[in-house]
């Protein structure tokens, strides 16, 4: 597993910009960061970002204002950035355990999509923001930021999908999967419920697995451009 996954699994969560190079002091700094981050998340779930002050965060974290500024010199903005990073890392950490156990590509994709949708639905801070302050969330999900998110997901998914296909194919599959999840999250549809494994299995079989098969077929053929398969691929549908 890559060092990203090790850091995530050990719950190190949000990093300083530019990454960690200093050796970790056991417990104190990391634990204090997490208490403040969790304090901020509690406040956001209750009242959103605009109304949350550093004092609110300090109170929720059980520490002083001064401590918050010592740990996060950038103040509220830095706390928010760390909170986002921490939640993303927690999500990937939990997902890694579940999809590491998956037997095949279909299981990886279904598990990943259901878990992502469930995590989003259950995330009280995110739910508050999507309802009351969507302008603070949506910029992170579109245009240039979506490109960054696609890369981040592909980096995370690479070792898991890499069990079943080459690296380039894994990147493409991770990207299509992320596009599907984001599309239905932002624009829900009748008949598609991303938290329901049966509904997701249908989506994965209809639209994602054929792309996987085509990519694997294309990877075996010579040349940079994949060719349209001459015969339709046989797929089991139950």
């Amino acid at each position: 597993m890559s060092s990203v996954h090790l850091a995530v699994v050990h719950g190190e969560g949000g990093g300083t910009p530019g990454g960690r190079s200093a050796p970790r002091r056991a417990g104190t700094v990391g634990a204090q960061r997490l208490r403040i981050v969790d304090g901020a998340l509690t406040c956001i779930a209750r009242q959103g970002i605009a109304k949350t002050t550093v004092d609110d965060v300090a109170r929720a974290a059980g520490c002083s204002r001064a401590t918050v500024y010592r740990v996060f010199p950038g103040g509220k903005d830095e706390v928010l950035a760390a909170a986002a990073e921490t939640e993303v890392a927690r999500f990937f950490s939990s997902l890694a355990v579940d999809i590491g156990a998956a037997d095949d590509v279909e299981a990886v994709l279904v598990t990943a999509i259901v878990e992502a949708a469930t995590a989003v639905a259950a995330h009280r801070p995110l739910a508050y923001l999507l309802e009351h302050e969507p302008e603070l969330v949506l910029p992170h999900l579109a245009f240039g930021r979506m490109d960054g998110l696609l890369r981040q997901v592909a980096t995370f998914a690479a070792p898991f999908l890499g069990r079943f296909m080459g690296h380039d194919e894994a990147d493409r599959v991770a990207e299509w999967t992320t596009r599907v999840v984001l599309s239905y999250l932002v624009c829900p549809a009748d008949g598609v419920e991303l938290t329901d494994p049966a509904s997701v299995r249908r989506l994965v079989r209809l639209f994602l697995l054929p792309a996987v098969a085509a990519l694997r077929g294309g990877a075996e053929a010579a040349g940079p451009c994949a060719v349209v398969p001459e015969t339709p691929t046989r797929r089991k549908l139950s």
Partner: protein
Amino acid sequence: MTGPSGAGVVTPADGGTRQRILEATYACVARWGLAKTTVEDAARAAGVSRATVYRYFPGGRDELLDAVVSWQFVAFFTRLYDEVRQATTLEEVLERGLVFARAQVLGHAVLQKVLETEPEVLLPKLTVESNRTVGLVAAFLVPYLETRPLAPGIDARTAADHLARMILSLISAPGRLDLADPVAVAGVVRAELLAGVVAGPPRP
């Protein structure tokens, strides 16, 4: 649906006062951005009173800016429709459409400026528009899908909805795909995007 028009000279044929206000507001946004454009600015630029602006847009600044975004959104898809309407196959629609749409996004100076300086003001509005647009794009694709044998388990409407979603996603963020390269686009459209959708060439 209003036709596309740039933020230039307004003639009476363009559809009257409401359109004139929209175009004037757009010109203000181009200069000062969304957040700083006020009803007063729009009124002055359009050569009408504030009261007149409120008469056409009773919701005030928010309604006015939503209407400007909506108008530009419709204009964008009108241009896209004009680009692809002559296409005879599904592949051609998707390939020409993606290349054209991405070029339009990158070349739209006001859009790029707003995305860079105040995305949080524009993106919630675009999200609302996008959700409406999935249906419109899907409806456009259905006839092309009906001429093809489709993969088992898929009907034209389900396929069209999926393709519409992926098209909007790709236009917004191309990811690993170079949308300026028609050969790369053709490869991805035919192999990956249509993989689970079509089962063969168009019926004769």
